[in-house]
């Protein structure tokens, strides 16, 4: 069944009060871009909040305004789909720090100039504070569930831990309760690529009409490798050459994988702000849910009464199964009802966005209760 493309249905909430941040500052004039699908019932208890990943946005099912591509989770969200908009009121909000409508470093500061590097460093919990402000404005006291993959999963864990009364279920896919040294290392490579680009200009590139596109593209290329599995790369590209019969003995993109990565990097710069990339990767690196709660992860969930479900993928080496198990053990120690499954899929970390029917079944089953 094909449905008509859903065009941009963005709404924007402007917060009346400054948003307090973990870094000690507060962010004034916050705007939160979001979209909703499905009807909120009279009891206001059928809402599901979907949290997006690092370079994602609130266009979960609507077409992306810059690329025109369908929403990032159309295969999961919609009428009759695992996250069923005939049954649930689905909310997806752009995180603060992003560049897709919510306040971020490219947004104007109170002086009218772009924030740039004057934007305060934010955390995953700060992003969640933005979501909570949105739920307050929408009059939703308690969510049926909060759902997210990757960085979205971090927001799910943070929301369930820090605002336990706001959700009755939490679904965490391909995620972690803390960023590992390896995770931080890959992000640092990306940030350094951006900051080494002369066009970055200490983050003040907005008035020059050109940003650190080369640096951002390299950052995206490095990150993109971490989203795929070696098995997947080999199957898709192997050592095949790009539109040529022989190696050129030069530094053109001889190999298909090189050409693919260059394209991924380049097209990313059309849709994403380099400073946003710095701030959001920083927020992820700072994420350590146990550290926020006295060093013991089980303590993070002491006030929670939610049901939890965690899903990992066997080829995901960015947030491997052991990270999900770590969360599961903490939830067990906290006595909370938790389900966990490691699914087999060839696509690495990106599996949560791709065609994995077993994931559909788990999500649908977990949410229908």
């Amino acid at each position, binding site marked *: 069944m094909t449905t008509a493309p859903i065009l941009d249905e963005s709404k924007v909430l402007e917060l009346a009060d400054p948003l307090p941040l973990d870094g000690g500052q507060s962010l004034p004039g916050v705007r939160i871009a979001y979209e909703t699908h499905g009807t909120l019932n009279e009891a206001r208890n059928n809402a599901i909040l979907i949290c997006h990943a690092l370079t994602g946005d609130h266009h979960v099912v609507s077409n992306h305004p810059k690329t025109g591509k369908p929403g990032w989770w159309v295969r999961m969200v919609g009428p009759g789909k695992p996250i069923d908009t005939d049954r649930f009121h689905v909310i997806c909000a752009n995180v603060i720090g992003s560049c897709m409508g919510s306040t971020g470093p490219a947004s104007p500061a109170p002086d009218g100039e772009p924030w740039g590097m004057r934007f305060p460093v934010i955390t995953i919990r700060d992003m969640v504070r933005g979501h909570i402000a949105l739920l307050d404005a929408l009059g939703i006291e308690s969510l049926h569930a909060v759902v997210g993959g990757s960085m979205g999963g971090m927001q799910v864990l943070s929301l369930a831990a820090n605002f336990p009364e706001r959700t009755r279920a939490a679904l965490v896919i391909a995620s972690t309760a803390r960023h590992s040294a390896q995770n931080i290392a890959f992000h640092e490579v990306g940030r350094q690529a951006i900051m080494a680009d002369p066009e970055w200009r200490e983050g003040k590139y907005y008035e020059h009409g050109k940003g650190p596109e080369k640096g951002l593209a390299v950052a995206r290329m490095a990150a993109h490798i971490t989203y795929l599995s070696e098995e997947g790369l080999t199957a898709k590209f192997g050592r095949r050459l790009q539109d040529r019969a022989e190696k050129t003995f030069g530094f053109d993109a001889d190999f298909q994988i090189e050409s693919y990565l260059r394209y991924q990097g380049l097209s990313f710069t059309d849709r994403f702000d380099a400073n946003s990339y710095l701030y959001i990767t920083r927020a992820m690196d700072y994420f350590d849910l146990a550290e926020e709660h006295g060093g013991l992860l089980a303590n993070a969930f002491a006030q929670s009464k939610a*049901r939890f*479900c965690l899903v990992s993928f066997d080829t995901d080496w960015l947030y491997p199964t052991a990270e999900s*198990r770590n969360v*599961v*053990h903490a939830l*067990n*120690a906290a*006595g909370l*009802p*938790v*389900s*966990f*499954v*490691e*699914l*087999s899929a060839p696509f690495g970390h990106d599996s949560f966005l791709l065609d994995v029917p*077993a994931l559909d*079944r*788990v999500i*649908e*089953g*977990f949410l*229908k*209760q």
Partner: protein
Amino acid sequence: MTALRPDLAVIAANVASGSSLLDVGCGDGTLMAALRDQKHCDARGMELDPANVGTCVARGLAVIQGDADKDLAFYPDKSVDYAILSQTLQTAMRPDMVLEDLLRIGRKAFVSFPNFAHWRVRMSLLWNGRMPVTRLLPIPWYETPNIHHLTINDFRALVKERGITVEGQWFLSGDARCSAAAANFRAEHAVFLLSRS
């Protein structure tokens, strides 16, 4: 509701209403679902096979993909009324350690297993001189998950040696029951309710 497997029916009949339990090796969650729906139990499960875990989650059950040999260590002491191990003991790497974990996690433990001293198994071994392949043990030796076959008398000896209290015991031959005295010869399945004082 389909009828439960006989050993599961025994466990279901003897679990207190409203109790909490951990079903280790819960399969597709049949027992957990029955106890949740009929006895309002707070049922949690652990299962090795991801397809089974998916089925359980789709049934609304809280089930963790895990291995009884490795992942029971992460459950707190006395965190449930019953720890249940049905038809899984003989598949463990270290059944004795799994048994100790069950009695640490649960205030009581149900353990069920196929009896390798059942007369049909004995006959098969005696006449054919080969590892028995029977109705209850249908898989040949080289691919069976049952790596630690045991008899009812073996289990009784282990329980005694470890100072574990037997609070209940049921012996099944098909749908019929048999006496404790004849069990090691006549029972296909045994179900024990255990505790440690």
